[in-house]
């Protein structure tokens, strides 16, 4: 897995963005940018330099699930792997996210090991 990929972390809580960013840095990914909801994330994605999207679900403006749908709808963005990191834990919601084309789903609170495992898995699949 290339470590210089550009990762966009979307969460309305600055604390959570920082935690994820730090964990990604520990995993060797230092090219990380942030957005605080789907609305601000989408234009960043459309600029075309993001390789991997990590997003929360519950956010004002545009939610993570709507952002995921927008990404899958846009032919230029559709191939970007998306990891959802969210407190939403209803089976119904996880199924909705899976059907919308999420690549990985982590429920908060999570551990550093789980984040690493899911990211590894996503890239194993993409590269394998």
């Amino acid at each position: 897995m290339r470590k210089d990929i550009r990762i966009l972390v979307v969460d309305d809580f600055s604390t959570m963005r920082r935690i994820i960013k730090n964990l990604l840095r520990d995993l060797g990914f230092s090219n990380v940018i942030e957005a605080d909801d789907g609305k601000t994330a989408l234009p960043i994605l459309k600029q075309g330099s993001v390789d991997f999207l990590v997003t929360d679900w519950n956010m004002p403006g545009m939610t993570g699930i709507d952002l995921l749908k927008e990404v899958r709808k846009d032919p230029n963005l559709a191939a970007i792997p998306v990891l959802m990191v969210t407190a939403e834990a209803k089976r119904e919601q996880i199924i909705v996210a899976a059907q919308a084309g999420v690549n990985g789903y982590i429920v908060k609170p999570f551990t550093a090991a789980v984040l690493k495992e899911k990211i590894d898995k996503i890239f194993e699949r993409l590269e394998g």
Partner: protein
Amino acid sequence: MPGLKTGQPTESLEALLQGKAQALVKVLEQGDLSTAMALISELQEARHAAFYREVGYLTRGLHEAIKSFSADIGVPEAQRCQLPAMNDASERLDYVIQLTEQAAHDTLDRVDRSLALLDQLAARQDLPAEAPPKLKQVRGELTEILVGQGFQDITGQLIRRVMQLLTQVENQLVNLMEMAAKVDRLNSVQLEEVCSVASAPDPERAEGPQVRPADGAAVARNQDDVDDLLSSLGF
């Protein structure tokens, strides 16, 4: 807080009902059906009027209770409009979010600095043999502290939901008071805010952290549950 006379309308309603009922029996005995029907509809109106009056009293009581709560917590008289206690409660909750956010960032700053110190230490050549595994352990603990700050996100989401609930309750209460004012001419209660209707449940609507994660099979209890569900979907 002014005394509430909630008992009174019920008593007068009873007297009214009794009178009307007796009159009804009388006219029925006389075979005067049209008067009987008129009396029945009067009875119904009396019931409605009493109900609305009761709602008016209760609403007014609630409003007075909230106003006196505002006075207790020191909201100036001039600002005691628009159910200020509710606004104040929301503001306090918002402040809790700010405080925990600040505290979490402070902790994260310290974790960052500690990790940097750890890196400096780990780079040294003259470390005793037992140092590297312990440094690694400290790094692991610091990472857990880092991840642990995620509490701020979880509690913040829960608090925001309570704030939403407060807003909804406030709006409904304002509606109720407007209705009561119309029905019962409660002129002393004057609130202008119009309510926004609460939206219907939607499976895509974010629910926030689950407060009772053991709530049956509808909620994934942990990451393993999520993984099982996803693998059953072919992930």
